[in-house]
């Protein structure tokens, strides 16, 4: 897992309300773009899960904060990769403190970031209580 620097590519930007019902649309665009880039179906499934996790977190934490500000999703596609950036104006968090699976029994939370990290090639998180969270993932075509 290395950090995902911003790459040169074609950018598609999507702005959705911070509501659960729109996560499906975000996935749909991702799979459509990945298919256009000839990604394998398994890689597309990986991407869909990772993006779903990102948007779920963005939406839940934005609305927890009482905010109505939209979630911004940027898809950056290049010859052999897709990068997806999900940005919210939520409360932010310390990425260094999360993302390890807890071993102590039956937990209902905390699977998101570990899943993302094992499904994508690069992960980069920029989070701040003042400005919110921006997470960028990269998936390469094999």
């Amino acid at each position: 897992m290395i950090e995902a620097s911003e790459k040169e590519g074609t950018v598609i930007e999507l702005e959705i309300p911070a509501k659960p019902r729109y996560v499906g649309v975000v996935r749909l665009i991702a799979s459509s773009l990945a298919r256009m880039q000839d990604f394998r179906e398994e890689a597309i499934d990986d991407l869909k899960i990772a993006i779903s996790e990102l948007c779920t977190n963005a939406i839940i934490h934005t609305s927890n904060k009482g905010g109505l500000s939209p979630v911004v999703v940027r898809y950056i596609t290049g010859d052999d990769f897709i990068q997806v950036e999900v940005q919210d104006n939520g409360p932010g968090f310390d990425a260094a403190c999360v993302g390890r699976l807890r071993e102590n029994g039956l937990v209902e939370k905390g699977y998101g970031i570990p899943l993302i990290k094992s499904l994508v090639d690069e992960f980069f998180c920029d989070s701040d209580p003042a400005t919110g969270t921006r997470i960028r993932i990269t998936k390469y075509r094999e």
Partner: protein
Amino acid sequence: MDDNNKGKGEPLDIKAEKVGNYVILRLSGEVDVYTAPQLREQIISQVDKGEYDIVVDLEMVDFLDSTGLGVLVGGLKRVKPHNGSLSLICNQEKILRIFRITGLTKVFPIFSSKEDLQKESG
């Protein structure tokens, strides 16, 4: 570029069926932050009716993420105090993988088909 949801109204459909001692919840569609509450409510209502042996059939599920995992773990926690069980039917690699990565294959009994389940519990 077209979508195959034609004719399907809802992104997640849940059908409950009593089979022997079990209640099987047959899901089809997508389990995510939007639809997971539906699954949670369905499990709670089964437990409220005294159904403590629940099987969730994931064979027709196109998509499942960590919100879905959380609801399934939540279901297991509800049936445990009643000596109940929460098992899964799933033979789709793309779904099984999520349980494997998160270590939840150790938590849920997973059967590859309804027949398998019946053989085992027979």
